[in-house]
């Protein structure tokens, strides 16, 4: 197992700041959903990008626009950003449906999109202008299933997933991974995000006598299900999706309710693991008075790679795209390199809560877990 190679925040900042100054900072549009149902994750994405750009004020300046939750809002924001003049790249929303709307525009205008969207389809459409700095479902769901089968020795997991596009895609990845690992899914059911009472589905899952409960839900539903499961007996180990690693999700639950709960994620900055991550986390807390999550760190690393491209002399979107497509970037969370489709992140973590506090511990690291 290879641990991510990390370089210090201060080193990155110093290196970028030492770059030859351009006549004027380049405009870098940051188009993210900071209102609407994905506002929590979108705010993290924005904060990560802003923190990166703050390290190099002479190189690039952020122009933040809210893309809310509709594809057309993202398209309007993109058009507005590009109508004001050339940009080297765009920090693009993590909402999959918005990204799908932006992909043809990015190809038409030949502008690279740097995102942390997890939607698998984005990098399967042959679009050379998308770069994803967050491990896609193919990576994290493989790690998710491997931890359940190889570490917890579960053979009959129950899977509860969201009925959204995010949930359906993750469910398929999990089913494929469990099948490859020789495990039999004892129970699976989709749940709409608006559902408040998870006890019926939990009761049915427990009737199937699973040896692990695998969740692939959004943040609020994950917390709701875990709280309701904590009040029931006979619940096996819970291994949740990446929503559970988010500090805002853990904040909804008491430490005792979290005991033994694990989650997959691309990274978990608050879990520490190195001085560089701890320094970055402290900086983030100071800057935004909030706890960072994997989306913030992924977008930070993505924006830092764009800055590294500018520093290397890339001045046009085409040059930045070529840099992103061909170079390796040692970020804080992991090393990033395109697989030829724009998937830059290939590592995943499993974190678990010990019931004493709301900070998860890293228990397993996976590098390219899908092989």
């Amino acid at each position, binding site marked *: 197992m290879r641990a991510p190679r990390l370089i210090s925040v201060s080193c990155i900042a110093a290196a970028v700041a030492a770059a030859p100054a351009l006549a004027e900072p380049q405009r870098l549009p940051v188009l993210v959903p900071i209102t609407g149902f994905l*506002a929590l994750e979108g705010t993290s994405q924005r904060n990560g990008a802003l923190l990166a750009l703050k390290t190099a004020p002479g190189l690039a300046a952020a122009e933040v626009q809210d893309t809310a939750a509709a594809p057309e809002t993202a398209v309007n924001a993109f058009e507005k950003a590009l109508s004001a003049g050339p940009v080297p790249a765009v920090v693009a929303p993590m909402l999959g449906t918005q990204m799908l709307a932006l992909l043809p525009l990015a190809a038409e205008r030949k502008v690279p999109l740097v995102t942390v969207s997890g939607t698998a389809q984005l990098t399967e459409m042959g679009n050379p202008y998308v770069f994803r700095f967050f491990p896609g479902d193919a990576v994290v769901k493989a790690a998710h299933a491997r931890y359940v089968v190889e570490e917890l020795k579960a053979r009959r997991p129950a899977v509860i997933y969201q009925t959204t596009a995010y949930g359906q895609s993750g469910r398929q990845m999990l089913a494929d991974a469990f099948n490859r690992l020789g495990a039999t899914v004892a129970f699976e059911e989709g749940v709409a995000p608006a559902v408040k009472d998870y006890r019926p589905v939990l*009761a049915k899952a427990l009737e199937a006598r699973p040896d692990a409960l695998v969740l692939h839900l959004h943040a609020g539903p994950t917390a709701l299900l875990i709280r309701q499961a904590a009040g029931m007996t006979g619940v096996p180990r819970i291994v949740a999706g990446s929503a559970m690693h988010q500090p805002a*999700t853990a904040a909804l639950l008491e430490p005792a309710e979290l005991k033994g709960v694990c989650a997959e994620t691309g990274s978990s900055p608050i879990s520490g693991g190195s001085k560089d991550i701890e320094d970055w986390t402290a900086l983030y807390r100071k800057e935004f008075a909030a706890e960072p999550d994997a989306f913030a760190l992924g977008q930070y690393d993505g924006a830092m790679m764009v800055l590294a491209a500018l520093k290397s002399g890339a001045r046009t979107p085409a040059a930045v795209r070529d840099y992103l497509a061909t170079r390796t970037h040692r970020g804080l969370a992991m090393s990033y390199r395109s697989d030829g489709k724009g998937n830059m992140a290939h590592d995943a973590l499993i974190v678990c809560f010990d019931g004493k506090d709301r900070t998860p511990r890293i228990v397993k690291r996976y590098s390219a877990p899908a092989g």
Partner: protein
Amino acid sequence: MSALQLAADGLALGAAYALVAAGFVLALNASRAVNFAHGDTVMAGGFLSVALAGVLPVPGIALLPLVLGLMALFGVALAAVAYFPLRGRPPVAVFVSTIAAGIVLQNAATAWFGAAPRAGPPLVGGGAIELGFAVLPRQSAAMIAAAGLVYLGLRTLLTRTQTGRRLRAAAQDPGMAEALGIPVAAMTAISFAIAAALAGAAGLLLSNSFFVTPAEGGNFMLKAYIAAAIGGWGRLHGAALGALMIGVFETAVAAAFWQIWAEALLYTALLLILLFRPSGLFGEAAGTRA
């Protein structure tokens, strides 16, 4: 987990929905137009509870009177901004203004509290009540009891007080009420106040067990709308009963079949009710549909 226990859970959720639906119908009858900000008012009540719990670390049940009072004031403000300036215009004007007010509320909550879900104060202590044949979480039991008390208070106000009689008269026939010297505008403002207070109470009841997020008002609005359609458009008790039925129905269907079918079957049941009982299970009270 016994069927009775699942039913109790569904009833707890339905009890909170009943307050939402009752408030929705009160404002509907007073204004003769749908208040599309009502779901976001529930959300506002939830966040108000979160904020109050940060200042006053007491059980949620102790905060209930304060939430009712503050949300009543909020209801008057909402009526002043989104209803009274458009009174007398076609109902669509009020639809649009209340939709706008809801969006403002949603974005204000995101700006002040952040986008993350938040947990409100528990109504009472944790744990469960052992009934022998079932185990009922204290929160669920407290939700049912608190919602029942608030609803009883509403019923007493409407049927046993002069203000209640005036409220009903102004809602049933504003012209006649005006001619009889009843201040219809003031009664409408009071109706909005009570509606917001009920929504706020529901927000408090739901905020601990089910959390609160800025974007969830639409879901509450939909539940209230369906409850009103099931119970009979404009029927206060019908809407409350419809909401209780929604809570129990969703839980029962989710337990018996797939969770995903619960919502689909709910809408199918609604369509059947509208097909065979177009005026709802208890008949329409309001003269016009909005």
